[in-house]
């Protein structure tokens, strides 16, 4: 097994992968400590899968090195792969095999003692014991996903790499799988990719955001959210008068006050607790009739979306610049068009991601009881 005293179970050093003229990832560097659940977040096509394939030893990087449990994924590939469980994005499985037959096959490859006990254990962990004798081809997408997870878990690896593990599952399965991953995180180092933001918020200790093949942010979740300067307070007052706005503005820490309809106010403030208590005191002392006082949390989603927008704008700027320079030499509108297309894709990205995030958070709030 992997040396448990290692500082880092997953290490990526300046990974770059170039396909022909297309650079899929560039200078990806990060490390994961033992027992950490790290989210790998980014829009589709950002290079998440490529990075994961390099870490699993499926493909070598064009340059850079990767280590799993302290073993180089190229020069010491077999040892690295022994410490690794991998769930690929598409969950490829053999449809003609039974669930237990396939898992026993993996257990034998993994050289496990007591193959059938391990198969039973892992089937129990993913809640598939009753389908052990079914053919994989006859399983639903969600069950196949769990078989995929079972084959990744069977040798109790130190490192788990999961490529979009919850994609295609129904709401109940998503909730269950997230709980399972969280539980596994206590004894495994997990790197999981997703483009669903609420998933990251729920499961991960740390988030690495990848956009266009580069790391945009790598920090604990709390830091990402706290790092944003402005926080908001919503006030709903029954007895506000025309001095309210002015008085609220004088409270230390309040950056601005916006008056809404029917006694609603939105305060932007620095996020410090003292400011909130002072606001509450003032409201009570002035007898403005407090109906509601809430803190609007900055969600990871909004932070991510703004990052994404920044990235897309930066990219579009580069294209526009290039287009301008080019048009000085030749009058063809082709370059201009590329920039426009880029803008379009940028716009398409945003609602898409927001929608998915919104969708899955509703799911979390009200887990449905649908049986598969």
């Amino acid at each position, binding site marked *: 097994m992997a040396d448990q005293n290692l500082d880092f179970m997953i290490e990526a050093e300046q990974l770059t992968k170039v396909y022909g003229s297309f650079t899929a990832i560039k200078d990806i560097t990060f490390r994961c400590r033992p027992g950490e659940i790290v989210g790998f977040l980014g829009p589709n096509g950002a290079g998440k899968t490529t990075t994961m*394939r390099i870490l*699993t*030893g*499926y*493909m*070598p990087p064009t340059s850079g090195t990767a280590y799993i449990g302290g073993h180089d994924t190229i020069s010491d590939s*077999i*040892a690295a*792969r*022994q410490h*690794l469980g*991998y769930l*690929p994005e*598409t969950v*490829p*499985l*053999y449809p*003609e*095999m039974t669930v237990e*037959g396939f898992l026993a*096959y*993996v257990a*034998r*490859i*993994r*050289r496990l003692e007591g193959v059938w006990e391990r198969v039973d254990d892992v089937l129990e962990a993913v809640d598939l014991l009753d389908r052990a004798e079914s053919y994989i081809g006859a399983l639903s997408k969600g069950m196949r996903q769990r078989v995929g997870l079972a*084959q990744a878990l069977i040798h109790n690896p130190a490192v788990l790499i999961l490529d979009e593990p919850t994609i295609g599952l129904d709401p109940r399965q998503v909730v269950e799988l997230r709980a399972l991953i969280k539980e596994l995180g206590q004894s495994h180092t997990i790197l999981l990719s997703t483009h669903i933001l609420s998933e990251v918020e729920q499961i991960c200790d740390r988030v690495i955001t990848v956009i266009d093949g580069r790391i945009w942010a790598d920090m604990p979740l709390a830091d990402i959210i706290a790092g944003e300067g402005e926080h908001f307070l919503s006030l709903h007052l029954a007895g506000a008068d025309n001095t309210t706005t002015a008085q609220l503005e004088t409270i230390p820490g309040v950056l601005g006050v916006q008056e809404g309809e029917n006694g609603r106010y939105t305060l932007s403030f620095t996020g410090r607790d003292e400011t909130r208590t002072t606001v509450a005191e003032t409201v009570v002392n002035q007898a403005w009739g407090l109906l509601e006082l809430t803190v609007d949390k900055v969600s990871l989603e909004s932070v991510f979306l703004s990052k994404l927008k920044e990235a897309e704008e930066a990219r579009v700027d580069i294209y526009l610049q290039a287009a301008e320079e080019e048009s000085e030499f030749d009058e063809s509108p082709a370059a201009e068009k590329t920039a426009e297309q880029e803008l379009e894709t940028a716009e398409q990205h945003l609602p898409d991601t927001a929608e998915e995030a919104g969708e899955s958070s509703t799911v979390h709030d009200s887990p449905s009881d649908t049986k598969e």
Partner: protein
Amino acid sequence: MRNIWIIARRELGAIFVGPIAYVFSIGMLLFTGLIFAVQISVPVIQGGPAPTISGILGTFTFVSLFALPAVTMRLVSEEQQSGTIELLMTYPLRDNEVVIGKWLAGFIFYAFVTAFTLIYALILVRFGNPDLGPMVSAYVGTLLWGAALVGIGVLTSAMTENQIVAFIVAVMINLLFYLSFLVSNFLATGLPPALSGIGTVFEELSLQTHLTNFLNGLVTATDLLYFFIVAAVSLFAAARVLESKRWR
């Protein structure tokens, strides 16, 4: 070794699940059965030499040039097409082990089907008085032939994720190897004696040349080595092809 057997075992299971294995087996038995029926009828009606097992195995090996690629085409292609190769290549297995395991499964299947022809051998032994030596050597040659063809099949299957392409390329390579003795025959008549060496090269390259010795009861080191080399080179190339796919 253990890994090779684990792969081969799974692969054998997959071969017998699909219909191709059964179509192949039935076809082979049909062809050899027809030939056998004709071979034992003719001496009875017209008189003449008693049939030998070589005639049956000659048919068997010839048909397998076209039919065996249908069995071997999926060995690696299927994994590439379905994506299971991604799992396989991230398990702690060496590319060589994967390739040899696949080959072993194909070879065991071929040997299994070959074993059905023992029925004809038993009939010949029961009702005639054939020489056992040539019979054994004919079977050794038939198995070696299969080892080489399965090797070529694994190679073409590793090259593409398209099973049809793997099939066609394997049949073409098989035929090139098989027919090269025709080239040598042609050259033998058309070339000055000084260049007859070229003809010999083509003759030695031919699968048929080396099988004929076995079928005639002649076991030589050259023939053994020939089939071994064809299988080994194919598998070595297949492993390198698989390895190179990682870099694309």
